[in-house]
């Protein structure tokens, strides 16, 4: 099956923002990312967008399609309709066309120490860290994040306060705090419990709504919030 579609793309050339329509014939099975490549190869070579794996793994192709952040490589054109409005993600500065500057997003991610912290790190004599299936399930879902930024783009708290850590970073913090092998919980709780942390969340849960990996960042933020509250109240009595 083939049908003519319109890709209405919000472009930015460094100075001005404008909408541009591209018409072409799409076939059944074509993804939005394939559509973007088709435009770049056949209609306008100057169109800029990010992509790498084309299979929902790298997280680089997230864009807003008809108002909702999605992975272009995992969205079928015909599932959306015949007119697709494609925009760069929100809450991040646009560099060119569909490419946003994700540096701040990654800095926030880095800030919560998203790695296993062990007191007994010894790289010369590595030792095996055992975990039961239950212990694995406590954090497993939250470890599937591909850092695509869709949640951050949809988050109203990230829209009004630019230093809010955001759903992805707090989910990463929770993923490690909930890991039985980790010993860095205290560090991370201190990092996420400032006024730029968990308290800014209003539980709109838009992040969970748009996450392409269905990992429910809103749940992680709420759990992290409860953990922070308990931790901070305990710390008064210490």
């Amino acid at each position, binding site marked *: 099956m083939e049908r003519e579609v319109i890709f209405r793309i919000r472009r930015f050339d460094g100075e001005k923002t404008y909408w541009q329509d591209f018409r072409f014939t799409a076939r059944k099975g074509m993804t939005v990312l394939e559509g973007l490549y088709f435009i770049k190869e056949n209609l306008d070579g100057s169109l800029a967008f990010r992509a790498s794996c084309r299979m929902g793994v790298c997280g680089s192709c997230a864009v807003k399609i008809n108002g909702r952040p999605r992975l272009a490589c995992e969205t079928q054109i015909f599932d959306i309709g015949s007119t697709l409005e494609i925009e760069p993600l929100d809450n991040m500065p646009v560099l060119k066309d569909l490419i946003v500057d994700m540096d701040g997003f990654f800095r926030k991610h880095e800030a919560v120490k998203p790695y296993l912290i062990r007191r007994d790190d010894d790289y010369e004599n590595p030792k095996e860290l055992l975990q039961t299936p239950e212990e694995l399930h406590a954090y497993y879902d939250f470890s599937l994040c591909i850092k695509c930024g869709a949640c951050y783009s949809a988050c109203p708290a990230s829209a009004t306060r630019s*230093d809010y850590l955001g759903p992805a970073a707090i989910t990463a913090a929770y993923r490690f705090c909930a890991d039985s092998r980790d010993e860095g919980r205290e560090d991370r709780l201190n990092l996420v419990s400032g006024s730029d942390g968990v308290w800014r969340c209003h539980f709109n849960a838009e992040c969970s709504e748009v996450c392409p990996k269905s990992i429910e960042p809103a749940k992680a933020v709420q759990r992290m919030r409860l953990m922070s509250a308990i931790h901070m*109240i305990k710390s008064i009595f210490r």
Partner: protein
Amino acid sequence: MSESHTRKVLEPFGWIFQMITGLLLFAFVIFHLYITHLTSHDALEYAKVVERLSNPAIKAFYWLFLASASFHAFNGLRAILLDTDFGGRNERAVNAITMLLFVVAVVYGGLLLITF
């Protein structure tokens, strides 16, 4: 993102008390409506109000009502301000001013209740 936010207790307490006062207000408003509008037709006359407030239990109830409403309002305002970049930059001032307003409201309202 400063690393110095250890032991900022206002945030967790603000969150917990916002929920507690929210629930309390729900019950308080219903009780207030009940005694002022549903018990008798002249419950809002000056003499009736004075009579009601001469009861220390009612006085205590209204003081608690006032304290919950003021906390909920000013802590809510604090959270709204902190949700903005402006609030984030002036965090200490936002915390100090809203909490001061809360204390002033409770003390001033409390004094009015006592003189009644």
